[in-house]
């Protein structure tokens, strides 16, 4: 870490936005101080069970990023710390004073074992579980906390309050408790500051009419989220707090404290996310228990984001969620039954009805974090009228009024996770422009050094982990056993193998015993593998010659009452590790140079914004535009409604941006030019451009910013036939020209060609705002005209709500139509146009003579097919480009080196587009700044002699890493053959191709068939004891292995019959592996992976599902019952589920009895 200001950036707030910004900056080689006031990073997202619209497990997708933050050498994680003071220096840097609050725990010594918390006598309400559970005064906030270190809460600790107790100090096996710790004030120098302090939820105790504190079964949405979570207080069972029973009816109430411009305790803006997350919670609740009736009471159903509208449709049609368009005024309790009475106005009959619910979930307004006032004073940056931090302007949406201070996420205003993440990357891009760092390219490992011809000499270090392992597993016995295993030349035990003195010991022993491979039997590789890998690397060994045997999370912690069996299992796990380690090979991290230039396709607002950032960082940018001028779609608009409730001239925005790219020498604008051909991959793309002449440019990265366009609604409501039927853009032109009649009637129809049942199913999110803008303009220019808006749900958010209020107030009338009974537009004999519409709110049909009928149409994708094929990137069902992950990778493609900016990804407003574009630039800059890309060493390698060119692997690879290369036939030179080739720069290492290859031509490095099978053999051929049943489980690294760890951290006790084998993805699990496992006599095989949609390699789990299904069907051919093989989806937070699956499976297999293929007789029936 560097102390020079110009190399440092401070990030305030460790939620998902802060984490993303930190990772993006660190990836550019910049030193990051990530300051978080609570004991762990993770923010609100860590509390969520699932995320919409994919229902991804929130922790599964966040936790790897949290762990990466703690491991990254460029990130200094300062949790439990606060910013006290910021001074701007003469050079434009910042001197920041940070308070590091005492945890009263030595961070270096604490291992996060949790023993202190177990013995702490104090029990107080848990913040993480939203007071639905208790924690102790000495505590780790949640099992996946980063850093995984205890803190002592001095306001509740008996030692601090009454000078008694100190139990934790006596119990801590690591002697980490230190009651004498003092607060530390640290001063750091930074070049830029990113604020990512997030949001809070409105305090519901003011809402007495909803009975929030009065009735136990009225919960806030975040409380309900904890009830849904597998790691929550009920283990993921939805139960009523009043009686612990399962609710039959749940009512979700939207807009609690939002969209209210009257009451002091409420907020006038729309909180944007509630409709969608209420839908998510309703879906998950029904997935937990299909008997639950879920009702969502809303005012306007507002879902802004890609795929969200389809999500709502799915909720309504498939999950049978009931949507009621009515907000209840009050909630009462039926004192007889305890049911909650929710009054509402029925949509179709206008009747007043009462819904009897067992549980009511209130969706409170998103409000600014409580520390914003103080922080704004310390930093000198402005707040908006609601108390959120104020962005500079529309074309610089993450900047503030002070240079060098940027905004990321919900501290700037209401937003969802994808936008927060995009904004975080954008803020990182802007902050990085203020830094200068020198990049040192890692030394290349020369192929020769990799050769390892000696016999394996393995050293095994077995950890007591205080009493965490040693209290259950007889460690000395395991050490003695280790010494008997083949290739093990040294074995010992350590109290804490992870302590710094043990690292020295390991290095010493490597030298002393000429060890060439090392095994540590301790905790999970997910957290500790990097530490030990760097230790052996320092001792001169290749880091891939290391293996961890997980005897804590997956042994001692889950078999606490069976020390004998746990010890036997630990021996098995160790023996399996030894077998695998003997076959490990050194791996090289291959680097590849990156051409220091980028290509940006499309010079609209997004493309120009992306290009500017990359060029400002000092790289050449080719900005290619198909049209003859820059500006993209918004050239067609006169003004644009921005984030707040003000309008801005589009010409000004375009001119300003155009000017800024013209003066930037690094940008070469190529107008009237199209892309003709793209070859190569990240680091070295060669792109042929066709303008007046043809030319080829070489670039390291590519940004796709091709934008979208307006639907011309031919065939809808007489457009194209009736002269007076226009689009909003055409109307805007007429208003501008002043060619309309004063006193006329203007009827606007929303959602024309959008939110359809089939085809264009999405909501374009920006059209409602456009409608309001033009309605306002009409009323201003022609005050005596009558403007009628026919809408379905009026979708504006944030300050847009107040804009909508003002427009209603101005006399614009709104009628709500039913898509099943849409308005009719007819041309009458006298050339007048008439609109007939059934207003669902009054159940009345209105006949409106209209001078103009204006259709609000969605933003649609250009024809992106040709470009998508050239770039080998996917598009979605609507023709927009498809990002790598909707939530956490909104500006990236699955293919490295190609990024996505603005409306090419889906409809967005202008600030969102610009933030998105700057985020894409941040990603595209990482390889450019580093100057090299490192390829994942765990990649597939094709044996060209074995490859038959079937292209099966090409189809299953989700990353475009496999291509078919033409080679000369071995036998006859004039015959050309095609062989698969894997580009290591693009391969992510899931291993699906290897499992799918029918001829075994693909070898998956570090997870080779030999290595995997060696563990199977070791497990089954000579076990220490052979319990009955004996089960082998294959777990994917990201979800199920993490789920098994979670079960361990949560101490969910399980049978000792299972031996786990970790692979990166279930996609790696070949049919051969499973069959061999059965052939060797396993009584059962469990395959566990991520839930569909959660796969870290996009779809590896789905391929496995196909293979396991097939195997299940043919299992009886080898005399086995199909129940002996099971595939289960277990996420990283589903520790409880993991335990249940294992327990149940063991029961099932027990009933079936031993496998007929058993080679080793049953030595012990458990």
């Amino acid at each position: 870490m560097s102390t020079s200001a110009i190399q440092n950036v401070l990030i305030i707030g460790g939620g998902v936005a802060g984490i993303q910004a930190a990772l993006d900056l660190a990836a550019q080689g910049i030193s990051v101080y990530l300051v978080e006031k609570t004991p762990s990073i993770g923010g609100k997202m860590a509390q969520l069970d699932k995320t919409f619209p994919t229902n991804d497990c929130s922790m599964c997708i966040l936790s790897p990023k949290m762990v990466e933050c703690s491991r990254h050498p460029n990130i200094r994680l300062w949790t439990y710390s606060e910013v006290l003071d910021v001074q701007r220096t003469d050079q434009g840097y910042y001197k920041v004073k940070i308070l590091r609050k005492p945890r009263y725990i030595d961070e270096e010594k604490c291992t996060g074992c949790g023993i202190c918390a177990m013995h702490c006598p104090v029990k107080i309400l848990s913040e993480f579980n939203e007071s639905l559970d208790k924690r102790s005064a000495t505590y780790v906030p949640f099992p996946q906390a980063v850093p995984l270190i205890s803190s002592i809460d001095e306001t509740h600790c008996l030692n601090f309050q009454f000078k008694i107790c100190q139990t934790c100090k006596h119990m801590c096996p690591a002697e980490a408790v230190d009651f004498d710790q003092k607060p530390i004030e640290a001063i750091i120098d930074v070049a830029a500051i990113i604020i990512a302090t997030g949001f809070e939820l409105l305090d519901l105790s003011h809402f007495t009419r909803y009975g929030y504190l009065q009735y136990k079964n009225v919960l806030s949405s975040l409380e309900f989220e904890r009830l849904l979570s597998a790691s929550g207080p009920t283990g993921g069972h939805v139960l009523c707090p009043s009686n612990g029973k399962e609710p039959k009816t749940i009512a979700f109430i939207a807009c609690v404290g939002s969209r209210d411009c009257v009451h002091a305790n409420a907020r006038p803006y729309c909180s944007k996310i509630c409709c969608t997350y209420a839908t998510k919670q309703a879906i998950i609740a029904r997935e937990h228990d299909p008997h639950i009736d879920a009702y969502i009471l809303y005012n306007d159903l507002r879902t802004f984001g890609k795929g969200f509208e389809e999500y709502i449709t799915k909720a309504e049609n498939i999950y049978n969620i009931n949507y009621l368009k009515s907000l209840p005024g009050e909630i009462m309790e039926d004192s007889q039954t305890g049911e909650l009475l929710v009054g509402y106005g029925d949509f179709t009959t206008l009747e007043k009805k009462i819904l009897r619910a067992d549980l009511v979930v209130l969706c409170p307004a998103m409000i600014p974090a409580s520390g914003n006032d103080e922080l704004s004073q310390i930093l000198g940056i402005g707040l908006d009228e609601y108390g959120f931090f104020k962005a500079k302007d529309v074309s610089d949406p993450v900047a503030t009024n002070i240079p060098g201070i940027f905004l990321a996420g919900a501290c700037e205003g209401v937003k969802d996770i994808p936008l927060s993440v995009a904004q975080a990357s954008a803020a990182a891009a802007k902050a990085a422009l203020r830094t200068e760092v020198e990049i040192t390219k890692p030394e290349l490992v020369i192929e020769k050094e990799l050769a390892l011809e000696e016999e394996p000499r393995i050293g095994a270090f077995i950890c007591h982990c205080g009493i965490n392992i040693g209290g259950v597993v007889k460690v000395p016995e395991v050490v003695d056993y280790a010494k008997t295993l083949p290739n093990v030349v040294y074995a010992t035990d350590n109290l804490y193998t992870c302590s710094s003195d043990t690292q020295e010991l390991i290095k010493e022993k490597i030298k002393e015993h000429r060890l060439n491979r090392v095994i540590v039997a301790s905790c999970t590789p997910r957290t500790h593998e990097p530490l030990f890998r760097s230790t052996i690397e320092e001792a001169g060994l290749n880091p891939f010659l290391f293996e961890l045997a997980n005897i804590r999370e997956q042994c001692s912690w889950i078999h606490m009452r069976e020390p004998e069996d746990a010890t036997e299992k630990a021996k098995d796990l160790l023996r399996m590790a030894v077998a695998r380690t003997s076959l490990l090979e050194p791996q090289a991290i291959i680097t590849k140079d990156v051409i220091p230039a980028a290509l940006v396709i499309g010079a609209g607002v997004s493309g120009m914004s992306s290009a500017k950032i990359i060029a400002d960082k000092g790289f050449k940018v080719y900005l290619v535009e198909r049209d003859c001028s820059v500006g993209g779609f918004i050239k067609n608009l006169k003004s644009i409604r921005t984030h707040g409730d003000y309008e801005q001239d589009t010409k000004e925005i375009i001119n300003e941006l155009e000017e800024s790219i013209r003066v930037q020498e690094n940008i070469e604008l190529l107008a009237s030019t199209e892309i003709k051909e793209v070859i190569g991959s990240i680091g070295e793309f060669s792109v042929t451009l066709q303008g007046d002449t043809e030319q080829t440019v070489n670039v390291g990265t590519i940004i796709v910013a091709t934008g979208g366009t307006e639907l011309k609604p031919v065939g809808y409501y007489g457009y194209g036939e009736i002269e007076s039927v226009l689009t909003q853009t055409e109307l805007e032109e007429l208003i501008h020209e002043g060619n309309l009649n004063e006193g006329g009637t203007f009827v606007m129809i929303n959602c024309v060609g959008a939110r359809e049942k089939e085809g264009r199913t999405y909501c374009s999110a920006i059209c409602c705002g456009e409608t309001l803008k033009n309605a306002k303009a009409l009323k201003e220019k022609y005050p005596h005209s009558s403007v009628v808006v026919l809408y379905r749900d009026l979708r504006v958010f944030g300050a847009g709500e107040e804009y909508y209020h003002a427009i209603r107030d101005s006399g614009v009338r709104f009628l709500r139509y039913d898509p099943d009974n849409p308005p009719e537009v007819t041309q009458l004999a006298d050339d007048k146009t008439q609109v007939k519409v059934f207003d669902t709110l009054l159940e009345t049909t209105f006949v409106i003579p209209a001078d103009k009928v204006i259709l609000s149409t969605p933003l649609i994708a250009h024809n992106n097919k040709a470009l998508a094929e050239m770039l080998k990137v996917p598009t979605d069902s609507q023709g927009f480009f498809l990002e790598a992950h909707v939530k956490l990778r909104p500006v990236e493609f699955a293919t490295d080196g190609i990024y996505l900016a603005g409306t090419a990804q889906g409809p967005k407003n202008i600030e969102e587009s610009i933030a998105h574009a700057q985020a894409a630039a941040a990603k595209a800059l990482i390889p450019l700044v580093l100057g090299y890309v490192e390829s994942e060493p765990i990649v597939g390698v094709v044996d060209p002699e074995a490859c038959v060119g079937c292209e099966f692997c090409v189809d299953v690879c989700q990353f475009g890493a496999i291509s078919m290369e033409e080679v000369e036939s071995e036998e006859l030179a004039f015959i050309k053959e095609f062989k698969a080739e894997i580009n290591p720069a693009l391969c992510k290492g899931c291993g699906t191709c290897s499992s799918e290859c029918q001829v075994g031509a693909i070898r998956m490095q570090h997870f080779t068939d030999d290595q995997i099978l060696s563990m199977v053999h070791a497990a089954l051929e000579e076990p220490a004891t052979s319990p009955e049943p004996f089960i082998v489980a294959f777990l994917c690294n990201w979800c199920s292995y993490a789920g098994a760890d979670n079960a361990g951290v949560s101490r969910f006790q399980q049978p000792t019959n299972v031996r786990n084998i970790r692979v990166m993805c279930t996609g790696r699990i070949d049919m051969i592996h499973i069959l061999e496992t059965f052939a060797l006599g396993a009584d059962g095989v469990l395959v566990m992976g991520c839930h569909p949609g959660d796969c870290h390699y996009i779809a590896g789990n789905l391929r496995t599902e196909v293979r396991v299904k097939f195997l299940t069907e043919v299992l009886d051919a080898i005399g086995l019952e199909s129940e002996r093989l099971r595939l289960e989806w277990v996420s990283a937070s589903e520790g409880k589920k993991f335990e249940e699956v294992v327990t149940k499976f063991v029961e099932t297999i027990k009933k079936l009895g031993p496998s007929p293929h058993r080679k080793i007789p049953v030595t012990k029936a458990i």
Partner: protein
Amino acid sequence: MDEPRQIVDFSRLDFEFSNYIKQNTNSNPFVCFTCRTCSSLCTSGKVNVLNVAKIVRQIAIGLKDDVLRSKEIWTCATCMKCQEFCPQGVNPLDMIYFLQNKAVEAGMPTIPKAYVEMVTSIAKIGLIQPPQEVISVDFDEFDRAELELPELSMPDAEKIKKNLLKTGFRQVIKELD
């Protein structure tokens, strides 16, 4: 879809009336965004035909006559909950008062008899009903003087009537004569 209840020609809607309410009362029907908070917590609406949200919406659209002719506006219990909790500042109660006045002014036949009787009584004796004797639970009558209660004071009925007639009640409530 069922056959719609009624078809209304937009050109016949009375926007001026809605505008008048916005300009001259504390109520603003236009800003209503139809959340129905008012109707769902309406005290009277729980047992009566009153649907506040519907009335606000009818006025916002310009369906003046439908509202003035309706009996609903007379069933309001004036508990003020709608006014208290409306998130957009529509102030439905003030609108209902105004509508009641306008209905009287327009001589709507839907004005409940009880209202007329009360007003008539006020005009005649200055009170909504004649004062009762002191009665026990068993309907035994007592003399006020015997109980040493003061004499009942009666308002100046003539003065009240004079002022009441100034408001134009005579035109609609014939009983006043």
